[in-house]
């Protein structure tokens, strides 16, 4: 009896230990991290791209705002409803999820300034003849839960006499229309447009029916500083064109951006337009950043040096013109260029479509990207080796954004530093195993003697270009291109870059090669190969959840089951009550209750993984308890009487005589319950756990290959369950031998 008690206590201790390990560590770093919830599948606002990295207008905007305003965001893709509920429960700080600002929502949430105009449209199958609402009479229409489009459709369904069917994500809704189960669906215009652009076999049947706008939301009265930061950052991003760039990247046009605030600094007439096609002998004003080593920075003698500076001067020399370098700061330089105050800008500026609207760019002169660096003697070579390790990042850098975006996938932790040197030192001393940094910055650091080495190819690549105002200073641009070509040919370009970056530098030539591997292989095996990383990590999450949950559910179930057969009314009552409650509650409800309900009551957050394990422990444990009880009761009462008549105490009789026989009866039920637990982990996708099912949803949201991806996911489940069944048969055979 004592042993049992000890074991029980041990398990409880384990559980508590686990809970504390997973509990959120608040305010560890000075730079505040906000947890922002979003939808899993709402392209073009949020979706996982080919690399299974979350992107989209919402995600990019949020990250850009965070960078601009100097805070950090932890984006949680949990599904629209789950995100909204989690925010209400205080589990997360804000939601950006293509959420329409509506009066009903404004009762509960405080919204930012609108950041995207939208409207509800109706889409029908490609070959459908339906053009207006009156043709929907008696038909079925697909909707997505909780969207403004669903609200709109429900408001007109009596009038037009159609029925609705509701889905949890857009893809399933589209499929329902594409397959003809439903004749039409309603969704926000940009979302539908994006889906159609990306191959959904639908077409828009109506013009936008309602006008509304999306906003970023926080819980009413809470996180006001975050809201203020968002508004401020959003305004700035719109003013400097970053936001337009983001939107354009996804939807091709910027028409959805609200015009409420002034977008960009007013353009004044160019005052210094070059009239002379011959640049020789002329002096040009070139704007640049204040400090962006190794591209531009002030050296010991306070002279501006760096790749940009040296390159610009070399080209000027090559082409016979003069330059006046003006370190204005990046944003100021861009604006000055637009207004014609300066002739050109060279500032480690990436060439983007958005900027191309306003500027003419030279040929790319440098390719940048985020690289991973490790200590010189380290054996870490790839991201997958980071699992469970600590990785150093610098606040507000592209490297930090990139690291945070992949850290869940590769299972590492990040530790944040305020300057590069501390970050490097953390890796050199071995506290962290790696750090992420822009490739030229990192190369420069290594060149400067930092004892690190770069082990990955640049990710998130971008080309830097020299810019002039659109249509202006074309002779300068031509001279720059010609000079660049000459410098590359005569080796001076390499000299400049290697001066700052060491021997192995990136140049724009290598960029051109790597950019063409874009076409996805959509075959069954192609999909597996492409997504094997995501599938593998989803699979691991599922297995981990299953194993931990089975463990605790079994412990919980056996204890409750034994309580149910032990003498004493209290134990029996408690046992029956626990079984009654947790077996009687749908798993989905229990999961949501624990994840969003408990924090509302207690005010403290529960990590999703813990909530998931607790949910499964209680639910599967209740079933386990029921069959443990049944198994013990199935042992003939004479066995207990005989044992007791010999003078054996209750506990000993139970352990030596009853349990061995009862367990034999229970084994098939246990195996069955393990299989059910494995399958039930899929339900936990509702609270945003990135397990196998959720992984499937995310992959499909990107590539819209529902049938194939669900087949892959189903096969993975089946394979595991087959293995589990074999194992169980083996165990049973051994027990009966």
């Amino acid at each position, binding site marked *: 009896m004592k042993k049992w008690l000890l074991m029980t206590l041990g398990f409880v201790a384990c559980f508590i230990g686990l809970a504390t390990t997973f509990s959120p560590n608040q305010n560890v770093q000075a730079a505040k991290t906000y947890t922002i919830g979003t939808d899993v599948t709402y392209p073009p606002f949020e979706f996982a791209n080919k690399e299974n990295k979350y992107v989209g207008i919402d995600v990019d905007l949020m990250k850009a705002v965070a960078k601009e305003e100097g805070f950090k965001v932890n984006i949680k893709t949990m599904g629209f409803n789950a995100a909204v509920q989690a925010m209400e429960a205080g589990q997360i700080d804000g939601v950006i999820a293509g959420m329409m600002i509506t009066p009903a929502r404004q009762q509960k949430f405080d919204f930012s300034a609108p950041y995207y105009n939208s409207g509800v449209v109706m889409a029908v199958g490609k070959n459908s003849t339906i053009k207006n609402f009156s043709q929907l009479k008696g038909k079925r229409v697909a909707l997505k839960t909780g969207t403004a489009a669903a609200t709109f459709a429900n408001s007109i369904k009596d009038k037009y006499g159609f029925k609705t069917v509701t889905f949890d994500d857009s893809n399933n809704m589209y499929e329902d229309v594409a397959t003809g189960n439903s004749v039409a669906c309603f969704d926000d215009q940009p979302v539908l447009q994006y889906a159609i652009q990306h191959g959904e076999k639908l077409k828009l049947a109506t013009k936008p029916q309602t006008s509304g706008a999306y906003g970023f939301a926080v819980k009413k009265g809470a996180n006001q500083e975050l809201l203020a930061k968002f508004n401020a950052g959003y305004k700035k991003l719109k003013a400097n064109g970053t936001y337009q760039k983001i939107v354009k990247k996804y939807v091709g046009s910027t028409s959805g951006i609200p015009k409420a605030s002034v977008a960009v600094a007013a353009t004044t007439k160019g005052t210094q337009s070059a009239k002379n096609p011959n640049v020789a002998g002329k002096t040009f004003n070139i704007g640049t950043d204040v400090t962006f080593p190794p591209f531009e920075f002030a050296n010991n003698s306070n002279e501006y040096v760096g790749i940009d500076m040296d390159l610009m001067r070399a080209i000027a020399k090559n082409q016979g013109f003069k330059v006046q370098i003006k370190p204005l700061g990046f944003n100021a330089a861009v604006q000055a260029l637009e207004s014609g105050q300066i002739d050109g800008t060279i500032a480690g500026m990436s060439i983007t479509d958005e900027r191309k609207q306003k500027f003419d760019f030279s040929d790319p002169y440098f390719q940048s990207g985020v690289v991973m660096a490790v200590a010189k003697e380290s054996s870490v070579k790839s991201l997958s080796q980071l699992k469970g390790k600590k990785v150093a990042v610098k606040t507000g850098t592209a490297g930090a954004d990139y690291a945070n975006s992949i850290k869940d996938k590769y299972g590492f932790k990040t530790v944040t530093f305020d300057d590069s040197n501390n970050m490097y030192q953390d890796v050199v001393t071995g506290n962290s195993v790696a750090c992420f940094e822009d490739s030229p910055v990192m190369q420069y650091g290594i060149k400067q003697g930092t004892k690190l080495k770069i082990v990955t190819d640049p990710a998130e690549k971008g080309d830097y270009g020299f810019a002039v105002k659109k249509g202006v200073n074309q002779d300068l641009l031509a001279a720059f291109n010609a000079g660049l070509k000459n410098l590359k040919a005569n080796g001076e370009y390499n000299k400049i870059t290697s001066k700052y970056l060491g021997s192995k530098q990136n140049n724009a030539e290598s960029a051109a090669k790597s950019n063409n591997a874009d076409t996805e292989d959509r075959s069954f095996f192609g999909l597996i190969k492409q997504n094997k990383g995501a599938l593998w990590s989803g699979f691991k999450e599922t297995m981990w959840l299953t194993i931990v949950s089975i463990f605790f559910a079994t412990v919980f179930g056996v204890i409750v089951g034994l309580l149910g057969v032990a003498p004493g009314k209290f134990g029996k009552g408690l046992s029956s009550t626990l079984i009654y409650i947790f077996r009687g509650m749908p798993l989905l409800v229990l999961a949501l209750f624990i994840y969003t309900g408990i924090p509302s009551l207690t005010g403290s957050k529960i990590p999703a993984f813990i909530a998931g394990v607790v949910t499964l422990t209680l639910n599967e444990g209740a079933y386990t308890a029921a069959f443990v009880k049944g198994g013990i009761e199935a042992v*003939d009462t*004479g*066995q207990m*009487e*005989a*044992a*007791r*008549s*010999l*003078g*054996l*105490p209750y506990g*000993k009789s139970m352990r*030596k*005589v009853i349990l*061995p*026989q009862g367990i*034999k009866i229970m084994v098939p039920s246990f195996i069955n319950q393990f299989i059910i637990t494995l399958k039930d982990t899929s339900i936990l996708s509702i609270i945003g756990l990135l397990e196998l099912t959720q992984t499937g949803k995310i992959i499909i949201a990107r590539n819209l290959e529902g049938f194939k991806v669900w087949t892959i996911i189903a096969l993975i489940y089946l394979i595991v369950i087959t293995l589990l069944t074999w194992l169980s048969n083996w165990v049973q055979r051994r027990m009966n031998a």
Partner: protein
Amino acid sequence: MSLKVQVTDLNKSFGSNHVLKGIDLDVQNNEVVVIIGPSGSGKSTLLRCLNRLETPTSGKIVIDNVDISDPKADINRVRQNIGMVFQHFNLFNNMTVAENIMLAPMELKGETESQAADQAHKLLQQVGLDEKFDAKIQSLSGGQQQRVAIARALAMNPDIMLFDEPTSALDPEMVGDVLEVMKDLAKQGMTMVVVTHEMGFAKEVADRVIFADEGKILEQGKPNEIFGNPQNPRLKDFLNKVLNV
């Protein structure tokens, strides 16, 4: 002769069913008491009260000067001194013959495996089944199982043995072997309380026969008095039915 068991005004109810109605019973040391009576008379319940497999509703049961009806009594200790044999044998199905016998001595007396095994061999020899030492329970016939059950009950060296219809579940040809073992025990001077329908056994072995019906002891005496000169009309009726089949 000293008093081994003393039952005073024992009552037992299962819900509204009053099964034992004020039983008084003394058993002397080395005495063999056989309880007879029709089904449902409460004989088995009376027997099961003696080692508290049933908790009495009221009344007092004193065994070897220990009041076992007192909830504070160390019943596990008292039970080690009382062997019990069940109608359905109740051998532990998850153990071999030897393990059944060795369990209690090893768990309760701290005997080593070899000590317990030696004793198990002796007990199995006593009941004529030593060759079944390592056999599985499921491989034994009913009669063999019951003899193993007796050996198991003897393993703690009890000085009282309770038999609850030990031959009722057996095929007729098996009954003899079991009764032989019980007769041997009686000859060795074991105090025995036996509930049975084996009138032959009662006549031959019992020091005293008790006739119980409807929860009361209606008549008791030496076997020749009970079988030769029954007084109570219900006893006469009962004997008529069982003896003149």
